[in-house]
């Protein structure tokens, strides 16, 4: 039988709880120093429970936190999905030769460091629609890690693997499906994992700018404009946990598809 609780898992659980306690302590301290301008964990917890009531309520005048979360996630999904669909093929082409690398790389290096916020007005100009502009922003920002990692993977295919294709006369199709893609797949997954992180980070900014829906809007409208710092903290915690979960999903995929050379 497999041991569920080994000494190690017990220890790391203890460390985790210790870390949480430390964070709670610092939080309490800050709350005390700011004379509850920043609410205590307990006060935040109360607001959290309040926010979590009827999370799926979807009336024209009130949308629950769950509905807002899902609308954020769907926008991230669309932007990230389209971004990946573009980034993977371009990455494959970019990494496949020195020439394509030299052609595409400068563009990537110039566009990659551009702040997500700078893309928003461009999206707005193109689509004349703020939700679509925020999707555009996610699309652009989530391109780069996937593109760069895919290109890196392709350009680092070991000579041994290439030799197999050459020696046995693999067709172009067989070479791509049996050598390039399997070798590059873990790199693509790493890229996707970084990209989903970026996309999730960008969505809040996008929704603050576009307004109307989503977690970003919740932070801005109900938190800041509503004068509830606790709601801002609740939103930060939710955003953090969802981001962690997204990361874990891709981490699991990465582990599943990594192979021992």
């Amino acid at each position, binding site marked *: 039988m497999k041991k569920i609780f080994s000494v190690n898992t017990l220890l790391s659980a203890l460390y985790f709880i210790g870390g949480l306690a430390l964070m709670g302590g610092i939080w309490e301290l800050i709350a005390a120093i700011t004379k509850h301008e920043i609410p205590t964990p307990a006060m935040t917890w109360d607001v959290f429970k309040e926010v979590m009531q009827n999370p799926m309520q979807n009336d024209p005048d009130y949308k629950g936190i769950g509905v807002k979360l899902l609308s954020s996630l769907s926008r991230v999904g669309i932007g990230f999905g389209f971004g990946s669909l573009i980034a993977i093929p371009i990455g494959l082409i970019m990494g496949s030769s020195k020439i394509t690398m030299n052609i595409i790389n400068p563009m990537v290096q110039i566009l990659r460091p551009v702040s997500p916020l700078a893309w928003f007005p461009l999206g707005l100009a193109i689509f004349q629609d703020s939700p679509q502009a925020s999707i555009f922003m996610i699309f652009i920002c989530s391109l780069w890690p996937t593109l760069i990692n895919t290109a890196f993977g392709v350009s680092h295919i070991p000579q041994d693997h290439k030799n*197999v294709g*050459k*020696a046995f006369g693999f067709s172009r199709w067989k070479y791509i499906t049996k050598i390039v893609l399997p070798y590059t797949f873990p790199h693509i997954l790493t890229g996707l994992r970084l990209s989903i992180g970026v996309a999730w980070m960008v969505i809040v900014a996008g929704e603050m700018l576009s307004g109307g829906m989503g977690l970003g809007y919740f932070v801005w409208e109900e938190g800041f404009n509503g004068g509830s710092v606790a709601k801002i903290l609740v939103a930060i915690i939710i955003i953090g946990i969802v981001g962690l979960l997204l990361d874990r999903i891709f981490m699991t995929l990465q582990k599943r598809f990594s192979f021992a050379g």
Partner: protein
Amino acid sequence: MTTTLELSPRVVEINAAAEPAEQKSIEINNVTVSFKTPTGVYTAVKEISLEVKKGEIIALIGHSGCGKSTLMGTISGMVQPTSGEVKANGNVVTKPGPDRGIVFQNYSLLPWLSVYSNIYEAVDAALKDKTAAEKKALVEKNLKMVNLWSHKDKLPGQLSGGMKQRVAIARAFAINPSILLLDEPFGALDALTKSNMHVELLKLWNLDNREKTIVIVTHDVEEAIFLSDRVVVMNNGPAATIKEIVDVPLPRPRNKKEIVHDECYMAIHDKLLSLLIDKFSINDIH
């Protein structure tokens, strides 16, 4: 045990007599290979000529970096000669082809494919005219030949070094090439596994009526003598040439244990060592 599986030399003689004269399997004519490097042009091998008969086993031996793998590459078609030409079965070599099977130094198995698929994909790519059933039969036959059929679903990472190299050998045999090119195939194996592999390789060659021409690149003197009919000793690079070709007239089947006491073997061994090594004891170091 497997040594006894070698056919008697008489059978081979009869087969050889039926052949129309002596067939040239590989012709290397005045081949030079140079590479452009950041520091200038590097000539690996210079003006090498060599003929190999059909069914002959030859070893290319020399120090590391002497260009023996490069020369082998010109036969396989993985390396293009800068000048001169190589003919395999009478055709000028321009690229790899199914008439030449290659076994690489690092096994070169694709780690994400099973043992079976590694061979199947190679067969599928190299022998396009065959039906799927014929290809599958070839994979099965060759995997059974190296006793790895029961491991067919494993990934290369789950196999030992010797098993991996047997898969690589089965893959090369599966496309039934008339020329087999082995580039330091057993260099990464321990001495015991290596000895077994030598015998197994000769067994496979025998099963095929000794019709395949085999070129083996090695830096192992014992390996070269045990396997080959001629040992081609190369000078140190750059611009390596053939230093000397040593005949190995030892009768086949050869026995690993007995051969080392053979006078002829010992003489060849000494000669090769002298050609390759100039310092034999600390007294020789000045």
